[in-house]
């Protein structure tokens, strides 16, 4: 059930055009009669008052071949058969096998409307990577038990240790990943936190400190203690409900971080308690942690500083991730957050993103089963990230054994990221999302961004509830570890 603070409002794209999937071509046979402009309900064709000529078709508004079965289709209505429809070659330049153009377009529609797309021509739930989530499908029962959608709960508790620390419950089993101060624009950062508050879930500061501008949302912000210990202060640890110890990041496991000197502006340096303009390295690993025992010492330290906060341990996905997870449980963590090898980043070596550490799909089952065998699965929350792109990925991750997921890229796509991958080059993101450039960072405001995120979270929640209903479930916790509800298109047939 969604919190009462969630209000869905339409929030259109900032840009005049979307990226079109189709191309509507008008041939010379056109006599400018204007029939197309009258018949098309989507506004592909426009003929302004007083103009003789119909304007060139606005491709992105076209719903494609499925329109040909409708009685208002311009192609069949045109008296001169002057219109034709084809796939737009431009669409091939958007997206990639992991985030297909359909998936990006689908996410944009969700962020705009708050609901899954009504169009049926977008394959937005699965990517084209040829493995992992993209090979898994749900086995929905033919006759589901009748469940009232209003009775379905998507809330999950984050403290399952019952150790007297805060009982934190989030309303939807997903929260925002860490993006540090300086790596994304202020509007991006604040909107993520604002949306987390609206959805009663969380977002994370990333490494580099807890800027004051996020203070109004501090009940929904996770502060990160990463290997550089930048911006870590007692007061920021004390102001939050969850503290995340970041050991590694899925996109660059085992490599640490590197903030370039030019990105280390006065404000960033102040927050990080460093000298402006110097390159800042976050080493790998924590230089005070070389064993699970050292790790416990770390957790005890945070626990002593903040007696009620929950502890989340973010690790990447090596072969021994299951051992790390169990070790973290015994060290006192509440949340084990595993970040898969194909996770997002502002900048990472291509060689690391492609090759180091395993995809999240394998790690989830590995960790879930190991924790179960150890008899501690019910006392720890397992959160997956690094490749959770859609509501279906989220539900599949839960079926594989996670309690919930953390997302990063999907949030940025909601803010109209096209995944061009130039976050760190030159002035940063040309679309104003991952940049601190004074001009580019002003491309959108926090209000627009917050609503887009709230809308996308809603669309995901709608889809998740729909999946639970089809399985006849009342609570998302019933879905955890239900691999029997999935099938693999290579193995199962």
């Amino acid at each position, binding site marked *: 059930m969604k919190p009462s603070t969630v209000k869905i409002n339409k929030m259109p794209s900032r840009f005049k055009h979307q990226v079109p999937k189709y191309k509507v071509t008008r041939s010379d046979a056109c006599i400018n009669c204007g029939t197309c402009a009258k018949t098309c309900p989507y506004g592909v064709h426009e003929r302004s008052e007083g103009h003789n000529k119909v304007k060139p078709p606005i491709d992105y508004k076209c719903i494609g071949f499925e329109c040909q079965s409708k009685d208002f289709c311009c192609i069949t209505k045109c008296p001169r058969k002057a219109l034709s429809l084809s796939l737009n070659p431009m669409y091939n330049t958007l997206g990639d*096998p992991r985030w297909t153009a359909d998936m990006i377009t689908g996410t944009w529609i969700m962020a705009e409307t708050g609901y899954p797309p009504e169009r049926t021509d977008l394959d937005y739930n699965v990517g084209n990577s040829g493995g992992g989530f993209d090979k898994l499908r749900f086995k929905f029962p033919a006759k589901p038990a009748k469940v009232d959608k209003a009775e379905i709960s998507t809330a999950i508790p984050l403290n399952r240790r019952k150790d007297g620390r805060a009982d934190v419950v989030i309303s939807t089993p997903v929260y925002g990943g860490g993006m540090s101060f300086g790596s994304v624009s202020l509007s991006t950062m604040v909107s993520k936190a604002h949306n987390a508050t609206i959805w009663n879930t969380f977002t994370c500061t990333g490494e580099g400190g807890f800027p004051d501008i996020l203070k109004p949302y501090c009940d929904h912000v996770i502060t990160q203690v990463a290997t550089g210990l930048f911006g870590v202060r007692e007061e920021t640890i004390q102001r939050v409900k969850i503290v995340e110890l970041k050991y590694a990041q899925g996109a660059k496991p085992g490599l640490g971080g590197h903030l370039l000197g030019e990105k280390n502006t006065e404000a960033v340096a102040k927050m990080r308690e460093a000298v402006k303009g110097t390159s800042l390295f976050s080493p790998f*690993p924590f230089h005070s942690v070389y064993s699970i025992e050292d790790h416990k010492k770390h957790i005890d330290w945070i626990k002593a500083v903040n007696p009620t906060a929950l502890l989340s341990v973010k690790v990447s996905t090596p072969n021994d991730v299951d051992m790390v997870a169990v070790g973290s449980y015994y060290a006192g963590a509440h949340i084990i957050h595993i970040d898969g090898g194909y996770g997002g980043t502002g900048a990472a070596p291509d060689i690391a993103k492609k090759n180091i550490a395993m995809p999240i799909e394998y790690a989830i089952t590995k960790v879930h089963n190991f924790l179960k065998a150890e008899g501690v699965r019910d006392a720890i929350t397992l959160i997956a990230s690094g490749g959770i792109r859609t509501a279906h990925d989220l539900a599949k991750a839960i079926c594989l054994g996670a309690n919930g997921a953390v997302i990063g890229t999907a949030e940025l796509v909601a803010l109209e990221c096209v995944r061009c991958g130039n976050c760190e080059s030159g002035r940063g*993101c*040309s679309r104003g999302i991952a940049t601190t450039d004074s001009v580019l960072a002003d491309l959108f405001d926090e209000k627009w961004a917050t609503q887009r995120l709230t809308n996308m979270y809603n669309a995901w929640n709608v889809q998740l509830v729909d999946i639970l209903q089809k399985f006849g479930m009342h609570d998302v916790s019933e879905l955890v570890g239900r*691999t029997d509800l999935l099938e693999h298109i290579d193995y199962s047939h």
Partner: protein
Amino acid sequence: MPKKYHITPKPAPLDMDYVFKFTIVRGENCINCGKCIKVCIYEAHKRRTDDPRKMADPNTVVCRNCFRCIQECPRGALEKSINKDYSNIGGAFWKPDILMSLWKQAEDGNVPVSGAGYRGPFTGIGFDSMWTDMSEIVRPTRDGIHGREYINTGVDLGSKLNHLTFDSNGQLISVVPETIDLPFPILFDITAYKLSLHVKEAILKAASVIQTCLIIPVTEITPELEKHSDNIIPSLASTDIDKHEAILKKARLVAIDYSDAMLKDFQALKEKIKKHNHALTIVRVPAVKNVEEIVAKLTQNGAEIIQIVADYRGQEINESSGKDGRLLKDIIRAIHSRLVEDKIRDSVTLVASGGIGMAEHVPKAMLCGSDLTAIDIPLLVALGVRVFEEPQKLLVFPEGLDKIPSRKLTQRIVNLMGAWHSQILEMMGAMGIREARRLRGESGRAIFFEEIDRESFGKLFKKEKR
């Protein structure tokens, strides 16, 4: 601690026709308003210099696919598509993106870095079907690449003893075989390509700068090249040994093409070479179907270094089977396991070659069981060569390559190797391995797709056979 091995990059752009990924076409309905100039931060859009009232054709070399111009053009007059040159170059193995990345690395020597997560397929074939492990809480290295600690990429070539033997007085009885150290696990190999002297010289100088060696047919070693004889590995047929006495005298390593006759009397061949000097012998064995058999026999007969030569896409050399041939990853794994089973793995050094096209292939080949690698095509790509796989293998050299100063060509290869060195350090640092020698056959630090997929998804989803 030895002096840190470091490759110094220096920008070395070529004045060549760049392949670019996108084409943007300005439609006739452009009203020359200049909105695209304002929104493009990469300066792809400019006005015409001869007539500033009009827009020039978009400069797509700089386009980074941000879609701002496409989405903000008031008339929707811009159309973008994938460039034909881009889709035509390379092929299934030498993907266009690999070639573009190699060109870039040769130009600036930097590690390719980008934002957003990995965008390729979940898994692939050959080396693309394995991931490397990393360590965090349980067994981390210190510092990874930014380290105060030294990650050593050095390897030795030659035979090694399993153990040492001493007499009752504690005197060493074992004769410790000679080995040759290389600071970087990559040899250069241009035996398969006809190159101009200018290009050969540039490649050889690069080998000398990064302190590795170049395998080159003995007949191509001219007096100009002989200046760098320390870095030359002459390659020849076993029957030609006596013909090239002068060159062999200077060589530290000699590469001999494999022939079945060697299986009978390899020792005699070695003696023949040793007659000329103390050089170690590399036997170049084509990666045919029973290559592990050949390698095992050669090793038993005293071969000290064996180079496995797969085809240019890392496939088994097998005229009959075509598609079913194994890939370098599996060939190396099979050879390594065979030698381990026969308890002779340490007596031979394995060089993996053919289809080593990216930095990641080097540590991956080593995890699969080779001691080092040899590369060919990447050296040429660094010089601006375009590779085509279809309809058949074709290398297109840039025009005027021989007029480009040799120093610049050398620097481009040095840059590429510098970028590879840094990337190999990244992977080793993440794995927690500080010695390249320890990568060999360390399959526990690799994650193989077939194994992990069978272990997890196979177990979960495979239907029981009834």
